[in-house]
């Protein structure tokens, strides 16, 4: 009886400890975060059905560290001409008419002590879906990846040694050097 109590006690402690550890390490990880947005913009229709390229709207990703959320004027490039009207499109048009900027709920948030530069990754040929998941199938944007440092390093360690196709054309001398270059250093992302 006593032994049983002890064994169950240890098992419970182990399980509790495991849950504690899992909870503690998942603090700040928001995988699955899919907040409601002021306008229920469906990527499924735009990026999926209509096959609009990601960089058409999120043009910042090409040249800047921030991919950015497009200004309403980018939406109006098409919706100024399209006749289709829904509640959401109505909300967009009202915001544009009133000159009111739309306050989106940012889904993918990195802590302040992390520096992430979109343009470096985009220009190196990393597909958007690699980190953001199958956005073209999402009605409401959900954070598909954990975005933890370990998860980033997984790719950096396995793939970043090999120059991607775009970069290979860029820096022949880098390819010829068997040395790590793409950000395994702490200062690649933390400064």
């Amino acid at each position, binding site marked *: 009886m006593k032994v049983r109590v002890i064994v169950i006690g240890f098992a419970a402690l182990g399980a509790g400890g495991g*849950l*504690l550890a899992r*909870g*503690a390490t*998942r*603090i*700040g990880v*928001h995988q699955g975060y899919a*907040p409601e947005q002021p306008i229920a913009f469906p990527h499924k229709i735009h990026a999926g059905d209509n096959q609009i390229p990601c960089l058409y709207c999120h*043009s*910042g990703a090409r*040249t*800047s*560290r*921030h991919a*950015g*959320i*497009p*200004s*309403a*004027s*980018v939406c109006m490039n098409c919706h100024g001409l399209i006749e289709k009207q829904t509640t959401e499109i109505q909300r967009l048009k009202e*915001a*544009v008419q009133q*000159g*009111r*900027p*739309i*306050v*989106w*709920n*940012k889904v993918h*948030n990195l*802590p*302040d*002590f*992390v*520096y992430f*530069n979109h*343009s*470096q990754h985009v*220009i*190196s040929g990393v597909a958007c879906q690699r980190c953001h998941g199958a956005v073209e199938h999402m009605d409401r944007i959900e954070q598909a990846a954990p975005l933890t440092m370990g998860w980033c390093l997984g790719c950096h360690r396995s793939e970043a040694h090999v120059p991607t196709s775009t*970069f290979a*054309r*860029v*820096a022949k*001398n*880098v390819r010829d*050097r068997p*040395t*790590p*270059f793409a950000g*395994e*250093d*702490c*200062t*690649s992302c*933390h*400064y």
Partner: protein
Amino acid sequence: MNRRPACEEAETAATAIATGSPLVQIGLPTGTRSTGFEASRRDVLSLMGFSLGALGLGSGCRAPVQHAVPLPAASTEMVPGVPNLYATTCGACSASCGLVVKQRDGRPIKIEGNDASPLTRGGTCAAGQASVLSLYDDARLRGPVWLGNPVSWEEIDRHIKTMLNAGSGDPRAVVLLSQTITSPSALAVLNDFRVAFPSFRHVVYDPMSLAALREANRLAHGAAVVPHFRFDRARVVVGLEADFLGTWLAPVEFARQWSRRRTADGERAFHVQCESGMSVTGSNADLRLAIAPSELGPFAVALLAAVARRVSDDGLAGLRGAGLAPDAPHAAAIDRIADALARHRGEALVVTGSNDVATQLVVAKLNALLGGVGKTVDLEQPSLQRQGDDAQVADLIQQMNRGAVRALIVWGANPVYDHPDGVAFTAALKKVPLTISLADRRDETGAHVRALCPDHHFLESWGDAEPVRGQFSLRQPLIAPLHDTRSGVESLLVWAGRPTDHRTRLRDFWQRELHPRALGAGPFEGFWERSLERGVVEMPQPAVAVHAFAGDWQGAVRDIVTRGGRPPTEAYELALQETVGARDGRHANNPWLQELPDPITRLTWGNVACIAPATAAAQGITTGDVVTLTTEVGKLELPAFVQPGQERRTISVAIGYGRWAAGKAGDGVGGNVFPLVRVENGLRRASAPVTLSKTGRRARLAPAQTHFSMEGRDIVQTMALGQDKHEAEHEHEHEALPNLWRERLHGAHAWGMSIDLDACTGCSACVVACQAENNVPVVGAEQVRKSRIMHWMRIDRYLEGDGEDVISHHQPMMCQHCQHAPCETVCPVLATTTSSEGINQQVYNRCIGTRYCANNCPYKVRRFNWHNFTANDDFPFNMTSPLGRLVLNPDVTVRSRGVMEKCNLCVQRIQLAKNQALLQRRPMADGDVATACQQACPTGAIVFGDLADAQSRVSKLLAGRRAYRVLEDLGTRPNVGYLKKITSKETT
């Protein structure tokens, strides 16, 4: 009390416990009563512990929601995250250096020099670097104020125009009292004002005046100009009480010129500095003499006589008997200097900052005798940078008192604070019916005027500048005006009845007046756009009509000799000094400048009375004793500071302190020394006889450096001129220390830096640039006293010798990026490691604040965040203010409490350059990356680059014979190397 974004659940629980309501949403541990709040204290504590723990782990803490708010209309020009660079002109002083300012998300955050400027070639000074912060100053006025009440522009214009136009037949003057206006378009606007008000007068006011220099040139050469001095054309430079590398006239340009001639080979320029207090310029001279201000005139005369004996056939008859006696203290030195000058006629330059016409005339004669006019002293394309007229200002005060002025507009001047007769000026202001201040805040003068019509900050403003005749630069706004301010030019135009916006006016001026004189510029549109983009334009102007020297130098000599040197009865003289941090006091509310350690005294947050060691010993004064300085016209109590190199009987005090209406940071810091000297014969003095007495009290200073000896270690190494050619080979091969560590994997680059100790003047532009670029917090005087100053870059000053012959060395010191770093081995969490590219990296989020790394660092370059400077009201500086935070660099983490930080070789700039190379499909090139300190330096002393590339500038510099590493014997193998300072006691 720091408020962190809290878990919502935890906050609920805490509130519940605080209010005493029972917790019902979770199960209570057995043994506690479930209703009421009669549980014992022990029960409550266990309840708290259990519930908070369960809540925290069970549901997981939630993070606050973040928003992304794009602009309603997309802009191709402003892409979030991509900086824009705009060329403009600095307004921190009248030197008007060309700038390129970095703008992020529509606001300027970093000031850099404009490489295209032929004058400054990209250099900046500490005040210029810091002026971006004054844009975000909370003390700035939010809008116009009339008789103490905030009003609209329409209303204040109505009041002002009514009062101005009411006096159309009134003979009383309408006066503009302004700082030197180097803007040709603004000067043209003044003409419009004159048309509207025929009794208009423009009086130019400089707290540290060069009026005597202009007057001397008028007498000597027929034009009242400040010459454009060319230190780069001089083999021998003699400075007489002129801190031209620090603050005199155009220090950024002069530093660049001076350093161009300070080569390591035999053609090196020889620099002699004669001054009373130790200045930045004096600390870099080859030969420095300490002479009192009253001895300056006789010294100049003796020098003239000595040079005349060597170059003139008759030794200049009027000088007979005017030299110093052979046994006078400086006779031997004068002979040496005269030898050097005479040997290099046509390539010699003598400058003096004295505000005595006779002395300036003697120096002008000296330059003429040495054939410098037209070569090192350019009178035909003169400087337009300090045009203050002391006599007119003195006149103005009298006129105001007599009631002969009906309107006074004060623009960029603060005479209530910095005029010797400030009290008289205040009284005189009351006699002027309409007084207007265009200052950006309610400063000392603004407190006594009727109307406050705040001008824009120069970063919000259009404009232009002509600092030297023929050299033009443009100013364009980097941000829409933050407050309801209005350009001073626009204000004047409105009141003159010709309202025009500044940009239109500027453009029209350039189209009408300047473009026609721009040879080969093509149509105006293209010329205008190109000029705005480039920032600087050279448009040769007709030469000023001057004639050969024809001044009454004999009269000047007689005048000086009659006055004699120091009166034997007076014990001491007070000398005013303009320092690189405080300047003339206009930046007193800028905490970056208040905390900038003075390169000479290494003090922050206040000024002191600098006393020579021998004098202090004789008087029984030690550093920190509060002394009273009493002159004929004023009295001031200041802490004493024993300053090696200080002239024996001169007490030097920095101007620009002791303000009382600058703002929270600047008020009450230091003492105001301006009222202690006076205006004599219509000229502002910079010195006065003074008596010194001890008060018996002590004051606590805030020094950034308390120990000035190298203790026998070779921290600053020097090399005699020419020695680098003869140095034996074997001296350079150091015995390689055995290596205990395995070799690290190296990446594509090895970032390193070279600092040329010979080129470094100690101006400290790099210190402020680093602070601006890297979000380095300001800590305040109390923390500085605890040695907790946060600057990543510091300029150490070491002294060799003592007494008046002391030699001063400046050494910029920051993280040396050791390849065998002592700090890395002791970090328990590996928050600091060396990257594959040689940078010693500090990972803020990993650091747990053990501080062992700072302990182990032999260079003491690591800085610990003892407080959370962003959320602590004990530090009311830019990081706690919503407006002040706008200056922060978004690419650099803002560190929290408990985290170590240090120089990281501007890794954000390296990463950006790598990214740009990637975007442009090319490998990185040498020169792609300029660290903030490198970019700011006016002499180019700092060179950053890739040590793995043998062809890079830095590799070549560090492979040279002058290169060494600091504390090399410790085996740290730093990637930062220094170039030995060259000592040359003789000119070749």
